[in-house]
């Protein structure tokens, strides 16, 4: 999943990075095919090149290896809202068929079954980044027909909804899961499977999705990880694990 996500990033991207899978994917891209990619974390570190993956978006490693560090107000107002960021990377507890994301609550807001961390930077990353990538583990609890709460807008209920909300950005263009790649249908904006990872069947994906999932007419197979990608990622993860275990 991390490797497939990293391939979606280009050398000329300016990327707003979240913690976890997005951070791993972005740094893998930087250490393989996209050495000049600009990584920005919402703590205000611009153009950072961490040697180990941060546990939080503000680890010292990010500031130490950044071109510059700016106040959070500037981060959100000039760089994000100002339209300087080409790709945003989001995850979510629930993602629906139009790529709307819930990171707020499962169940009713006032009496939640599970209280999740909340929006953080995501509502505006979803609105202001040129394009949005999403990563998530593929199961029917996450990929639901309708999210309990729209924290961050994807494609709303279909074509035209983003424009009606005053947005001119593309929104989610790709969802990377551990089973497949999904992209919004150009006409309906509903997520359809465009590529299956090696060894994954249509039935597996259908079972792990909370709505009757559609498959593209020309369904691809995701190329398997290369030896280099695997080596660089494992190396990065080992370094990170060692660094964070130290008290």
């Amino acid at each position, binding site marked *: 999943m991390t490797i497939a996500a990293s391939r979606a990033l280009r050398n000329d991207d300016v990327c707003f990075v979240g*913690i*976890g899978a997005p951070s791993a994917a972005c740094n893998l891209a930087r250490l393989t095919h996209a050495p000049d990619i600009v990584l920005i974390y*919402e*703590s*205000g*570190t611009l153009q950072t090149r961490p040697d180990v993956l*941060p*546990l*939080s*978006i*503000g*680890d*010292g490693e*990010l*500031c130490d290896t950044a071109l510059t*560090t700016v*106040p*959070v*107000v500037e*981060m*959100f*107002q000039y760089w*994000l*809202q100002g339209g300087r960021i080409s790709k945003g990377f989001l995850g979510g507890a629930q993602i629906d068929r139009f790529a709307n994301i819930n990171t*707020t609550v499962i169940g009713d*807001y006032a009496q*939640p079954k*599970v*209280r*999740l*961390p*909340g*929006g*953080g*930077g*995501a*509502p*505006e990353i*979803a*609105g*202001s980044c040129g394009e949005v990538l999403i990563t998530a583990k593929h199961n029917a609890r996450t990929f639901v027909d309708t999210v309990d*709460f*729209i*924290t*961050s*807008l994807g494609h*709303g209920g279909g074509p035209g*909804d*983003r424009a009606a*909300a*005053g*947005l001119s950005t593309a929104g989610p263009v790709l969802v990377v899961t551990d089973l497949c790649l999904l992209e919004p249908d150009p006409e309906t904006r509903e997520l359809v499977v465009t590529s299956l990872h090696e060894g994954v069947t249509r039935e597996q994906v259908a079972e792990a999705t909370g709505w009757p999932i559609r498959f593209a007419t020309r369904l691809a197979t995701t190329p398997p990880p290369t030896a280099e990608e695997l080596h660089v990622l494992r190396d990065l993860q080992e370094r990170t694990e060692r*660094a*964070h*275990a*130290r*008290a």
Partner: protein
Amino acid sequence: MAEIVSLHDAIAEHVGDGATVAMEGFTHLIPFAAAQEIIRQGRQALTLIRMTPDLIYDQLIGAGCADKLVFSWGGNPGVGSLHRLRDAVEQSWPQPLQLEEHSHAAMAAAFHAGAAGLPFATLRGYARSDLRRVNPNIRSVVCPFTGEELAAVPALRPDVGIVHAQRADRVGNVLVEGIVGVQKETVLASTRSIVTVEEIVDDLAAPSPNSVIIPAWAIDAVAVAPGGAAPSYAHGYYGRDNAFYRAWDAISRDREEFRAWLHEHVLEPQTTGADS
């Protein structure tokens, strides 16, 4: 004008029961020592403001100091949930916690508006987010020039703003280095402000004229608290204790285990030093 006082006296004088308190530091320079002093002094019914509640508010909430939380992301970064926060929201333990929930962009803009003496902040934000539905403090304004509809949130004006920094000079001018978050905005937006510092020095030794300095005359109290940001970190002084952030998950998951931890590490030592 900043008075240089002990941490105990700074909290005793400036943080009253029922106050609205913002303790900021965006993953860096989080004022843990000050928060733990608030817990030791047994403050009640606080409204806590913070973009990322983090372990610091998990401790204050679990200790029963807070009635309300104004926030934008409430998790243990890279680890998972804040269990004391969740327990208060889901089970009302140790008491119910009212939430006012925003996004990071809106919180940052609201601190900025507070510091700038404006009544509200505007942003191109919250597009079709249900946060608008559950938070009556997220509204809309129409641009008088273009007619564009923008989101609006009220300025944040805490009774007390508390931040941690690397050092102060003997007059109380403060140097902040590294990830500077919304600390300056918090001090300037608040009616009263407390800055805890690693050390007080004769010369601030600011690395350049562009360094982030908060002048003494914009601060009410400066208190020395070495290690006062741990288990978060102070750039140039000590690193983030990521192992403790991970360990917190188990400590905070169980009410009794949390209480035992609080007793041993915060209530019992009766010192103003940091804990990690």
